[in-house]
């Protein structure tokens, strides 16, 4: 079982994250746009990853998660993102008490007690506090999503008051028409997302002495992490593989399930 190869695929609404996993370790990762056909991107990415390591598709255990998971017809195991982000997070930072994941179309906070998911909250009713909200703001401000950190200054921000992403867009347009500095507006957008996350964190209740782990693609933004740290008072940490936490968690869960019923 230790030398079994696993391919974990987290087919998100925006990005498809794929990992190759063996012996409880991440061997390689790959990220691409999910595109219109989640099955196709999942197939192509896993092919590419296997090719890099001269592996054939035979004898590989495929574990999938993310919104596209049901469409991926070559899965051996399918899990929801909640469980995958939790187990992926625990794999990356053993003993972590909670996970924050801001996805393309939802955001979630997961509470872990004794290596198990104890509770979770999910915002999937509206775009506020999700990656979609951030990319909308980037579009309006003419900034690349990847370069938020260079652009923003958290010390000075314009308050974004609208709870709704559509109205927030109008608010941003209003601020631009007043020639407000774009870095201030972007800082306001990050604050707004951080406040949404704060509400969920406070509802679940965590120990202030211990850190929370941020997973998902947006964990690469130091500015967003800092905004959440300031808003919540928690030490928010990340890991270089955090964007792949869902895919890694899928492998960990599949590994557990294979052991149960070989």
């Amino acid at each position, binding site marked *: 079982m230790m030398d079994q190869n696993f391919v974990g695929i987290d087919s998100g609404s925006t990005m498809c994250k794929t990992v190759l996993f063996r012996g409880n370790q991440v061997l390689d990762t790959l990220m691409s746009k999910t595109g219109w056909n989640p099955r196709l991107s999942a197939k192509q990415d896993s092919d590419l990853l296997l090719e890099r390591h001269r592996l054939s598709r035979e004898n590989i255990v495929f574990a999938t998660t993310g*919104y596209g998971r049901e469409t991926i017809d070559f899965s051996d195991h399918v*899990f*929801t*993102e*909640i*469980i995958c982000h939790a187990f992926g997070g625990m794999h990356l930072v053993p003993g972590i008490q909670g996970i924050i994941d801001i996805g393309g179309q*939802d955001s979630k906070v997961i509470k872990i007690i004794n290596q*198990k*998911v*104890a*509770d*979770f909250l*999910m915002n*999937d*009713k509206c775009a506020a506090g999700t990656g979609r909200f951030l990319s909308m703001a980037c579009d309006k401000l003419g900034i690349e999503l990847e370069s938020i950190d260079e652009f923003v200054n958290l010390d000075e921000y314009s308050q974004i008051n609208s709870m709704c992403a559509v109205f927030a867009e109008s608010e941003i347009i209003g601020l631009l028409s007043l020639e407000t500095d774009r870095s201030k507006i972007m800082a306001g957008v990050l604050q707004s997302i951080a406040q949404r996350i704060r509400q969920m964190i406070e509802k679940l209740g965590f120990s202030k002495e211990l850190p929370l782990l941020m997973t998902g693609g947006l964990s690469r933004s130091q500015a967003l992490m800092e905004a959440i740290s300031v808003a919540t008072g928690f030490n928010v940490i990340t890991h270089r593989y955090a964007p792949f936490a869902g895919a890694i968690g899928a492998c960990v869960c599949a590994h557990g399930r294979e052991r149960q019923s070989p």
Partner: protein
Amino acid sequence: MKENQLPKNFESFADARKQGFLHIKALKDAGKNVVGTFCTYTPAEVIMATGAVCVGICSFSDETIPEAERVLPRNLCPLIKSSYGFALTEKCPYMYFSDLLVGETTCDGKKKMYELLGELKDTHVLQLPQTQTDEVSKEMWYKEVLRLKDRLEEKFGVVITDEDIKAAIKLKNEERIVLKELYELSKACPPPISGAEQLKVLYGSQFKFDYNVKLHELRDTVAKIKQDYEKGERPVSESAKRILITGCPLAGATEKVVTAIEESGGVVVAYENCIGAKTVERLVDENEEPYKAIADRYLQIGCSVMTPDTKRYELLTRLIDEFQVDGVVEMTLQACHTYAVETQSIRRLVQDRDVPFISVETDYSAADSAQLKNRLAAFIEMMA
């Protein structure tokens, strides 16, 4: 006597709906009066004692919501919008043929909707107290039950005798006993029926108007399920996580919650909702003064319109134990303030017993089916 007419757009209806209309029309043509009710607080016995058909008319489909929204605010509970919409569009046979509608001052949305509904149909509103244990509330509710009796007697030109009301109490109690027997079958592990099947029987029993036939059929159903189980039939997997559903009324469009649970490795063993345990649990005391006994029984139903809602907590706690529940799913409807606020107390109550809890808010559309599935699947995975 005036002739019972079908609605103007009858010919455009689907067959099942046409059958519903024709069925009720036949009852009306045979001289039966029809009374439509909304909440579980309406004392059905008083209506039955007049010889009238008593039928639930809370609506569970999004079909008439666009029409209702021409009058009602958009950000309102879908059950209220839908029910009003069915009155407006004449698409519900029970609503359409009702001689009288009976509502109560439960939530603010319903209470105010009844004012508008009263413009379309003859509507009687019972004033429901908001607390359940104090003497003033008990006295007031007793008087409201008597006021309903007077209203019905006047409306239908009948006198309810002592025998009538006692007979109605007995019949309704018998129904409760057999319905309870039915859903308590799911105490078995694994349960002999799925949650979807249990709901179908509980909900469907409202629309069978001949009590003798209904009781006979229900007893047959119970016997058949028992027999199959004893023969070793196990339609539900033993590893399925046992879920209790609580919260707002659940039927029709919101059965999507049950589907999401049962497609994800769970099985609904108990419903605390209006169509479920809380409507059925208590019997009317047959040895008490009838109207007093009726008032006492109905006022003890738990619902978030009551403050504090201790009866709901008591029933939930008991059901969690008796049905060996693995997890509790609460469903609230969009814009239902009382249930949404009470979620906090319910979450604490359930989690303090180390039972996983999740609350999902939904409406009558299919728009959130994928998200619901995702959340509830994660909830069930979390218990594995």
